[in-house]
């Protein structure tokens, strides 16, 4: 059974949308990072879907890179978050307003 590419793209879009909304709305910084991961994975799913539909190897390799980068990025993000938590004792993004003008 071949799943029509449309369905995969729709799922990928929904995932991306949820990820975007999560980034914008979530208070907890860790949850925002998780939402970013969600967006990245949605992009991966998009790659894979097109690789399956057009048989391109690129679509298989590239998401590996994305995952690698995402892992590094999360590590850095968590490190920043921990540094921030040490100062503010909170992971609420609303409290990160030192740059407030």
């Amino acid at each position, binding site marked *: 059974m071949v799943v029509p590419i449309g369905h995969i793209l729709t799922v990928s879009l929904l995932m991306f949308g949820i990820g*975007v909304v999560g980034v*914008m709305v*979530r208070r907890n910084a860790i949850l925002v990072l998780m939402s970013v991961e969600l967006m990245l994975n949605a992009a991966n799913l998009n790659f894979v879907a097109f690789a399956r539909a057009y048989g391109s190897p690129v679509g298989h390799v590239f998401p590996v890179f994305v995952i690698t980068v995402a892992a590094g990025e999360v590590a850095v993000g968590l490190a920043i978050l921990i540094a921030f938590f040490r100062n503010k004792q909170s992971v609420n993004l609303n409290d990160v307003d030192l740059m*407030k003008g």
Partner: protein
Amino acid sequence: MLSLLFLIPLLPLAGAALNGLVGHRFRGERPVAVVACAAVLAAFVLSLGAVVQLATGLEGYAQGAPPNVRVEAEARRVEMTLASWIPAGGEGSFVVDWAFTLDPLSAVMILVVTGVGFLIHVYATAYMHGDPGYARFFTYLNLFTAMMLTLVLGSSFPVLFVGWEGVGLCSYLLIGFWYQDLKNASAGMKAFLVNRIGDFGFALGMLLIFARYGTLNFQRLAEAIEGDLAGAAGLTAIGLLLFVGATGKSAQIPLYVWLPDAMAGPTPVSALIHAATMVTAGIYMVARTSPLFAAAPVALFTVAVVGAATAFFAATIGLAQNDIKKVLAYSTVSQLGYMFLGCGVGAFAAGIFHLTTHAFFKALLFLGSGSVIHAMSGEQDMRKMGGLGAKLPVTYRTFLIGTISIAGFIPFAGFFSKDEILWKAFEHGHPALWAVGSAAALLTSFYMFRLVYLTFFGSCRADHETQHHIHESPRAMTVPLMVLAVLSVVGGWVGINQAVAFGADVNFFEHWLEPVFAPAARIAAWHAEHAAAAGHLEPHYGLGVEWLFIAIALAVATAGWVAAHRLYVTRPELPARIAARLGAAYRLVLEKYYIDEVYRFLFVDGLLGFSRGLAWIDARVVDGVVNGAASLTVASGRASSEADRLGVDGTVNAVGHLVYGGSSVYRRLQTGRIQNYALGMMLGAFALISLYLILG
């Protein structure tokens, strides 16, 4: 000597300049007195020489006269032109020169002015002794003499008017000599102001003369008038205007009010200015313009009527006065009336004759009264005098001579001149004026003898302190009195009229003045002809009638004397009883008929109120406008500064606020929160992509 004519007014002027500029630096009073008296004496000597030459050697002089002198031998006139004053020649020319004329009339005047003036100067050296303003006094006195001489020697109206105003000025300065007392200063101002009113009429008259005849020179004017007698209609107005000026200067009705007040000045001033000389300027002017007046019979008659009325009116006031100088002042006004009466009936020579004799005895009377006041330590009220005859023998005797002369007893000077005037008044057809004049003569005799009896007879009513100081005056004062007394006796003998001289023609005075008044006589004759043609003929009187009138005159004088003797010597309680019985009438006369109060009400109060109103306008309205303009400027300045503060600064501040407000709004974009930034990025990306897709 005639060539030195110009020195006659000039020498007293030089004396005045010298005393005025450096007089106060001289050591003591002597140099001042010497300068002043010498100046007048020199003027007198020159006058004498000039007149003698005029009388005898005129033809000889005419041949060798300097070029600026014009001699007319049969008219006995010498005119010396010193300089051109107003050379406005050409079309409608107005040419006036500084020129002096010596003819019989001005000859008489300069002799009187310098002669009597010199005696009064000498008298004043003693009278004013010790006064801090000694030099100033003699400066003014000399200046007056110079001005008076300019007046009588002037060849034309403007030169006369210079002297006229000059004597008015000196009169003001001398009346108010002791100016620290407000009364004296006020009297001086009153004299000047009343004079000025007369001068206004005088100036108008001069303007009209020039407009009509194109000349102001006396000689040329006389010729012009005589050449056009039929067309002399407008001359009445001119004559009356000139006479207004004369009433001001010579104290006639209605402008006599300044003269009694003028007694506030030192007595020599009263003698010189207000008896012998300045006040006679009006008569001199009328005599000088006799052709004009002769050609305007209505004006001339007015002169006579005013003169007679003033003579009587002033005499009535003199009856009741208690101040010795006031009696003499009203007497002067009265006698001036006689002079105008004489001129007014056409007897100009008689008027001038009385002017001369009056100068002698009135100066004598005033100087004598000064001697009395001096002895009485300044007292002038006759009720506080008495019995001075024994203590002041020279003063008394000379004063008595003056009194007899003014009363008009033969053979004293006053008789000849006064009788001449009264006779001429009757002879020229004015019996009413003769009657008024005779009545005034009766009163004159009465009040003069009243004065003598109150002052010199009876017991002394002064207080003890004053009595102690009574002493005869020094020689410098008594010698002029004696000289004037002699003149008051013999001065009339140059004018003895025919009747008195039993038909002999010895009236030297009248003959001497004949050439001067000949034109007037001719004009009067022309008018008489025309009047005769209409049916009025002047009757001719014989010597017998004249003698009758002389007898009446003497009787009148005697009656006055007798009445005075009765009231003040034999029955001294009578005057008080009569005054009480007359009540209001007596008070009316004593208070000079309240004329001063009437004038004050009519003229002065209104004028003062008007000037006060103008002052109010100046203080409130004018200053108000000025101050208002200033306030306006200040207010506009303040408004301007407010506008600057509110407007300009406001705008600047508003811009700042705007930016501040704007930034405080935009600042809210920088929340510092990442999620807000992310949202912004999202929205922006979405907008761009939509744009891309739509526009594609």
